[in-house]
């Protein structure tokens, strides 16, 4: 909180001056302040969740047969005798240093575990958003240009089904059909069992690692494993992206400058892509950033269906074995990424869209 309050105090005295001279500085300070408040709020929520857990963190360390004095010593060592607010500050301090405690399951630092599993999620979500954008944007544009035609209807149904479908069920059906019956794709996991650890891990993204290593067998195998879950995530972002693209485009296409361009005899292609589409790019990028953020967290269920060793699987496994440090660490990381992407899309909007100023 301290950072944010400090910033709040400073703002009123600066405002008149900055309005004339440095509007950018004022805005930046304000944005930074609100980011800080949001981040601290996020950590506060996870901290509270950790406190109300029915699991005794001391017992988890000392075991049930420890003497009272051992118990008390650990109790003090963990700082549990201090007031709640002090404990929270300790917690903040740890998190700032990327210390999420040790996992109760494998006794390794949670931050190391997360660093290991996060690239898998990143790879999946990135491929997913690429699929979603390359299909969703043209679909939305087409639906807007041919409003009311069959393609508009198709786009509508595609989106509606996407909004209504349980993602984990669609994943299961996909596995059943494309893996179980047709055999077109690799099954669960990131690569087949014979390809595990064949290429050195440089980026943690198997597709890129395999390409760097020039090992195309691994690349092909990894691709056959990732394509189904990525298409699945891609479909869900496609549903949202195509709807948003459509409504942005409709707004532009009804504007007068479009009529003018048409009257001038400009080709329809140029009207749609050069004029209308150019004007929705900023809005579209914010939508895509938001969608990407949702994919990073929405992959929890998908990862479980496809035994994908990402952060969603990590959190869920930890949850089921009551490994609280791991759960909270994972939650904080996902929350951070989510918030940062949100902020990023906000900023983008402010920077590129003159109307937002």
């Amino acid at each position, binding site marked *: 909180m301290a950072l944010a309050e400090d910033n709040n105090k400073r703002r009123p005295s600066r405002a008149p001056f900055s309005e004339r001279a440095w509007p950018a500085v004022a805005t930046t300070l304000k944005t930074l302040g609100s980011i800080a408040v949001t981040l601290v*709020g996020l950590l506060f929520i996870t901290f509270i969740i950790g406190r109300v857990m029915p699991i005794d963190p001391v017992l988890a360390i000392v075991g049930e047969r420890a003497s009272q004095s051992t118990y008390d010593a650990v109790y003090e060592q963990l700082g549990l005798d201090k007031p709640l607010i002090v404990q929270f500050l300790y917690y903040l301090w740890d998190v700032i240093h990327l210390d999420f405690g040790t996992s109760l399951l494998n006794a390794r630092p949670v931050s190391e575990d997360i660093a290991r599993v996060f690239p898998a999620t990143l790879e999946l979500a990135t491929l997913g958003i690429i699929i979603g954008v390359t299909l969703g944007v043209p679909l939305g544009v087409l639906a807007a240009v041919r409003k009311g035609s069959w393609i508009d209807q198709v786009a509508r149904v595609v989106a509606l089904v996407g909004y209504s479908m349980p993602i984990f069920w669609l994943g*299961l059906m996909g596995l059943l059909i494309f893996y179980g019956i047709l055999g077109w794709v690799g099954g669960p996991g990131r690569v087949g069992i014979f390809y595990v650890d064949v290429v050195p891990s440089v980026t943690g993204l198997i597709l890129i690692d395999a390409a760097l290593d020039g090992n195309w067998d691994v690349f092909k195998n990894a691709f056959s494993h990732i394509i189904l879950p990525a298409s699945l995530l891609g479909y869900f972002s496609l549903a949202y992206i195509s709807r948003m693209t459509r409504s942005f485009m409709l707004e532009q296409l009804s504007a007068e400058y479009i009529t003018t361009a048409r009257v001038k005899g400009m080709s329809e292609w140029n009207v749609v892509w050069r004029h209308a589409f150019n004007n929705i790019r900023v809005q579209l990028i914010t939508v895509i950033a938001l969608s990407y953020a949702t994919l990073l967290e929405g992959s929890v269920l998908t990862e479980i269906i496809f035994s994908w060793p990402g952060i969603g699987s990590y959190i869920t496994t930890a949850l089921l074995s009551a490994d609280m440090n791991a759960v909270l660490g994972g939650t904080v990381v996902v929350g951070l990424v989510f918030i940062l992407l949100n902020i990023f899309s906000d900023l983008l909007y402010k920077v590129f869209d003159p109307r937002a100023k």
Partner: protein
Amino acid sequence: MSETQTLRQWLLTDTPSSRRHAKLSALYQGWLSFRSNTMAMIGLWILILLVLVAFAAPLIAPHDPFVQSLGNRLAPLGTEDHVLGTDSLGRDILSRLIYGARITLYIVALVALIAPVAGLLVGTVAGYVGGWTDTVLMRITDIFLAFPRLVLALAFVAALGAGIENAVLAISLTAWPPYARIARAETLTIRSSDYISAIKLQGAGPLRIITKHIWPLCISSLIVRVTLDMAGIILAAAGLGFLGLGAQPPSPEWGAMISEGRRFILDHWWVATMPGLAIFTVSLAFNLLGDGLRDVLDPKAGE
């Protein structure tokens, strides 16, 4: 017949004779325009059917949803006496789906009560009181909005323990912020209107103004939002059930049923497929209904 004709005319009159008359007339006209939306009507019928099925579950379910029959496990679709087959413990899938409708409705109804009411409270207070209260309440709302919903719900359920009630609480905790935003926006526009100044001069206190004059006007936009959110709520509840954090076995919750059937997906596909279809149908129905309601109650929000 002639009586309904006159009732119809009475409802469609241009010159309502009383306030109630005008209200009923507006409702009826809304209904007429809603009725012309085929997709929305399909959604409505599916949901009516769902409610009927849930209420009449003991009457229409062919079997007890909990009775196991290990000799008859994993029977395929169309088996005599088990139209949708049986699961790994030989329980009739159709009966479990029928009883599962109760759980789904229960979860949706509870969340639809808790989240909008909480949001309405926070939003109207923030909007009406303004100043510091507004800043603090909206900051909190923003923090919750910034949190990824499923992960937050997961963490909450982890803290509270698995179970239906806790799943409902967790989903509500993640679902209220948008309502608060809407209610606040509505309150801000209403607060400065003349009729609020008029009743203030008549001596109405803030409590009375908020509950009697602001809340009624926020309701319609909240209803639209709730209906559109229902699909998401169902999917979230099913997701928690699938992860084993919602309803606990042997409860016939649809998400949990999918999770059970997942182990046999390659050889006995129907066990996981049927509950998924049920979830899909119901959330599709809510989406269709929500779209239709939005067109009637809030025409500007559509295209």
